[in-house]
């Protein structure tokens, strides 16, 4: 899908590799670390089961146990890069890179549980994910976001994404890591 995509010439970053730890704006200790299937799968499914459907974007996350499980299988499979944000034992945020053509390209998505939004966790998640992606050899990352979702667009711009296609329903943005 990305054969026709435009990426910035200059790499952004550097970005931190996981794990990273912050105190969020509500004073909660949050750790962002690599996703571990055995350790985190149940908690990740629980996060998506609790996710407000009003915050879905372009059909993801899906709803219902079966669809959530199928979707998580596909986005945590081989060649993907995943990090989760932990508060205590719970997973409160998740960011993922899913490989796309050509090699070295990935699509990004990030989700933060509603009660944890607006507290700086998204920035930490996305920067740490890009650090992990760089380590995994990913050079180009793109995403789409609803054109009316200004908070998300601001977050992506702050990290270094630039608009690459603003003509369709979804606002497409891209970043170069290397």
């Amino acid at each position, binding site marked *: *899908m990305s054969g026709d995509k435009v990426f910035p010439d200059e790499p952004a970053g550097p970005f931190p590799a996981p794990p990273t730890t912050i105190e969020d704006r509500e004073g909660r200790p949050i750790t962002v670390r690599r996703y571990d299937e055995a350790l985190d799968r149940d908690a990740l499914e629980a996060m998506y089961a609790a996710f407000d459907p009003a915050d879905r*974007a*372009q*059909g*993801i996350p*899906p709803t219902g146990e079966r669809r959530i499980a199928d*979707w998580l299988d*596909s*986005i945590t499979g081989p060649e993907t890069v995943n990090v989760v944000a932990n508060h205590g034992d719970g997973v409160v945020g998740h960011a*993922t890179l*899913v*490989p*796309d053509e050509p090699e070295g390209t*990935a*699509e*990004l*998505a990030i989700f933060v549980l509603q009660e944890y939004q607006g507290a700086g966790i998204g920035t930490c998640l996305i920067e740490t994910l890009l650090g992990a992606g760089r380590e995994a050899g990913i050079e180009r990352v793109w995403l*789409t976001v609803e054109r009316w979702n200004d908070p998300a667009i601001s977050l992506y711009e702050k990290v270094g994404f630039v608009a690459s296609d603003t003509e*369709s*329903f*979804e606002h497409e943005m891209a970043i170069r890591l290397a």
Partner: protein
Amino acid sequence: MKLLLGIGGSDDSIRALERAVDRVAETGDDLTVAILRNPASEADPADIEEQARAVLDDAGVSAPVRHLEGDPGSELVELAEREGFDRIVLGGGETSPMGKIKLGGIAEFVLLNSHVSVTLVR
């Protein structure tokens, strides 16, 4: 019901063709297949027609197959309105590697401009 199915050769349009023809085989709706020039697809219109006729034959459905030249979305809407179709049927978009649904350009135009009801096949 008088259905107008628009296909331009993208994967989702071929899926819409198969699903719509299966449905018409059950309901007996009056189907017309319109082959569009989708700028995002490199499929040859003659090949698309051949594929459409094969799907129709397999299902035992007979439907006229027409070719629309020019801008696909506007030609489809114009045909539907001019000839009194009840519904336009289109592919519901591709999904990204992440699983995000992305509407095609033809579907975008048709949804925003058609006075005829539109079904997107998922």
